[in-house]
């Protein structure tokens, strides 16, 4: 059975139920039940028309629940009103679902969970595994999120920027489990790009594709991090890069620059360099300037300092770094790197060890400790 196909039908099935008069929370539960039913039944008995099957199953689940809720009159009204099954416009429904699940009244973690379930069609269990929390916790997070947005009208226009932030989080802060969250984020962003014509949606999709293209080379077989400069560029996914670059170029011609397009442009310049020495650092610095103008983020200026170090030499990089707050995450790691490039191995080794103590995750900590160890060994104690 094609689980991806099944899940791609989720938003339109949910949209149909809502337009038939089901409230969002109940419809979402019903669709989830229908998806679980499909996973059980389809392998042995595949339907001729998967979407109709899902709509029928979900609608039946919804009516069962409504019946159980003793809202008999309401149910009968709904049965009377049930429209003739047939093709329905689905693009707008899909878009509305994205807006609803990323509604600004939701916390980021709630918006992420709700988007993965109601738009992505993942089960609560899969989402819980992906974010390393108990299933009951995730179920509560999702039902609280649905309560929070229960007063929001389904046809209200939303803000694309909030949706993009949620999708970015899914891509960037997903952990592991059965579900590949990075691939899921790409799928959802692709689906969004098909529903709305917006250069930043394209920018985010390009950014994801360009980073995803390097994924296989970012970790060694033993799980340790491989920095960009040391990655085996021959193993980068050229199809993914080509698609990302094409999408980005089309977006940039619209002349409505945003942070995701700028980030994608930087990723594209890295992807474009056949060797690390051929990287166009001057242009990368220019894009970081653009990005700093758009976001005013200190993290951007930290990354810019690294790029300046490559474009104009480590001393220039250190000067750019000196202007930034040294409490910034990864500030010490950047300082260590620039000092190493500058030939001051003793300072670099000390800073790498300090950066390891401040590392936000184990993979980075091990990587930075290894860097300190490498320099200490080279200095031949």
């Amino acid at each position, binding site marked *: 059975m094609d689980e991806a196909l099944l899940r791609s039908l989720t938003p339109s099935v949910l949209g149909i139920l809502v337009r038939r008069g089901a409230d969002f929370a109940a419809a979402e539960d019903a669709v989830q039940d229908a998806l679980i039913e499909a996973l059980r039944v389809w392998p042995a008995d595949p339907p001729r028309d998967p979407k109709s099957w899902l709509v029928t199953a979900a609608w039946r689940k919804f009516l069962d629940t409504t019946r159980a809720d003793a809202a008999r009159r309401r149910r009968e009204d709904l049965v009377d009103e049930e429209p003739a099954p047939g093709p329905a416009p689905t693009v707008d429904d899909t878009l509305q679902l994205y807006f609803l699940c990323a509604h600004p009244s939701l916390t980021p973690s709630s918006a992420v969970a709700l988007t993965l379930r109601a738009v992505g069609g993942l089960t609560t269990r899969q989402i819980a595994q992906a974010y390393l929390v108990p299933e009951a916790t995730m179920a509560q997070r999702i039902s609280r999120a649905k309560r929070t947005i229960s007063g929001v009208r389904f046809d209200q226009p939303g803000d694309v920027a909030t949706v993009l932030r949620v999708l970015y989080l899914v891509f960037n802060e997903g952990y592991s489990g059965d579900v590949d969250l990075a691939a899921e984020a790409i799928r959802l962003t692709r689906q969004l790009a098909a529903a709305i014509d917006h250069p930043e949606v394209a920018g985010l999709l390009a950014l994801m594709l360009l980073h995803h293209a390097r994924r296989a080379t970012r970790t060694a077989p*033993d*799980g*340790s991090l491989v920095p960009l400069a040391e990655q085996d560029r021959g193993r980068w996914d050229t199809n993914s890069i080509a698609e990302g670059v094409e999408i980005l170029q089309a977006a940039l011609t619209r002349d409505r620059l945003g942070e995701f397009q700028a980030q994608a442009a930087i990723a594209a310049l890295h992807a474009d360099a056949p060797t690390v020495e051929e990287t166009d650092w001057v242009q990368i610095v220019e894009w970081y300037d653009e990005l700093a103008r758009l976001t005013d983020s200190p993290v951007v200026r930290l990354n810019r300092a690294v790029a300046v170090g490559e474009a104009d030499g480590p001393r220039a990089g250190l000067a750019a770094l000196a202007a930034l707050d040294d409490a910034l995450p990864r500030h010490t790691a950047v300082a260590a790197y620039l000092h190493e490039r500058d030939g001051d191995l003793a300072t670099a*080794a000390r800073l*790498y*060890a300090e950066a*390891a*103590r*401040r590392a*936000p995750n*184990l993979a980075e*900590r*091990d990587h930075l*400790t*290894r860097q*300190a*160890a*490498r320099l*200490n*060994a080279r200095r031949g*104690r």
Partner: protein
Amino acid sequence: MAKYLLLKHYRGAPAPVNDVPMDQWTPEEISAHVQYMNDFAARLEKTGEFVDGQALAPEGTFVRYDGEGRPPVTDGPFAETKDLIAGWMVIDVDSYERALELAGELSAAPGAGGKPIHEWLELRPFLTEPPTITE
């Protein structure tokens, strides 16, 4: 079955036999150590004895209630704190002897020179739910 916590300390445990800071090892020794830890956890998952394993950042904050309507008071980190937890592994095993055996294996993770660290790990039993049959 009984659950045990294997506690690893940044500070507060007696000094291990092979006591060399990690940034003074060779990169290969670090890789071997990380591999040993990963293999250990993977093996316990296979035997059905692994529950959880997490690492903690070395710096934290002390927090306490400061009365109605007031924000919590924070303090620290205290450099002089004697005991500093680095991380843990929770195991679910059939006996105390098995818990001791596993803690011993974990403590044998290789360090500088590829030799076991002999790190001191703290083994703490979980308090359980009361049993159904009590008489």
